[in-house]
């Protein structure tokens, strides 16, 4: 039987390069920073939800290339209402407006004057 094995690394990231879910490159620090922190983040390889196929270098959405999706739309008769990848702004433009995922949510425990959007 096959059992998946995970390893956890605590990494130093002072400028907050990465967000939850990103695939990143890490490097061992010459000296341990603390008891836990042993590595630092070098680079964000694949941002979360913006995946590139490593073999062909093309952008992917689920099991399809984005090109193929565009092609399909063109064959059916593309409409302006569809989503255009080239015009899309960088990730994070809805953060704190409609997309509340940058912090973990928690069970709401009190009704405050100022409501916290991360309380569920």
């Amino acid at each position: 039987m096959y059992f998946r094995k995970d390893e956890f690394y605590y990494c130093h990231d002072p400028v907050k390069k990465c967000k939850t879910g990103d695939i990143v490159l890490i490097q061992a620090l010459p000296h341990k920073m603390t008891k836990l922190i042993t590595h630092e983040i070098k680079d964000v390889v694949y941002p979360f939800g913006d995946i590139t196929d490593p073999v062909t270098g093309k952008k992917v959405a689920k099991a399809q290339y984005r090109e193929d999706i565009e092609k399909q739309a063109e064959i059916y008769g593309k409409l302006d209402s569809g989503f255009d990848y080239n015009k899309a702004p960088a990730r994070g433009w809805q953060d704190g407006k409609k997309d509340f995922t940058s912090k973990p949510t928690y069970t709401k425990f009190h009704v405050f004057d100022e409501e916290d959007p991360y309380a569920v």
Partner: protein
Amino acid sequence: MIPPSALPEEYALSEEIKNASEAVKQIFSIEHRGKKEYNKLVQKELINRIRRHQYDENTAETRIARITGHIRCLQDTLEKYPRNVKAKQTAQELIDRRKKLLKYLRQYDYKKFEWLLEKLNIVYKAHPESLHKLSRKESLRKLTEMHCEDIRQGKLAEYKNLLESQQGPFLKDKIDALKLIRSEQIELQLPITVMEQDIKKVEQQYEEWKVKDDLKQQARKKKKNLLLE
């Protein structure tokens, strides 16, 4: 969202209705066709906002838009009849299903996910790590913790204020003492240990403190005035 004078799908393209009188138009409008027809139009309008092509019916975006339309209609009913339990349950189920679809869309296409939130005016919050029913004890514990933390921070800030207020007089004394030491060392022709630079450094620190203190005093005055008013 949709005006009551809008025409349902099957009459919208008709030539005859365009030239018809106001009364006829009103009779054929969705105002007189019932809630079902209105709901259909709402759904269609939402799907048309994000449609890729004419036959786009079953992609993630369209499914989310369709569910959103259904939810909005149910919410309309709930506003009118808040004790309609069946509608409430259905709305909750649909919201959960939509959340699941949004979760998947976020995983494989983040840009589209954000665009969809903007277009359909949906708010997405991540699933909490543990979703449990809140107990009275937990709530009280958290509130007590917050209160204690407030008190702690307040005391720390007060102490910091006190220490900072003592910095000014100390720096003044330091400048005087350094100047005295230097003049005496020159007078008695001893090796000079206090340089001009050292004194200047301390003077600069004193100036900085003065500016900071002025700002603080002004803020305090403003607060007092506000309280008096």
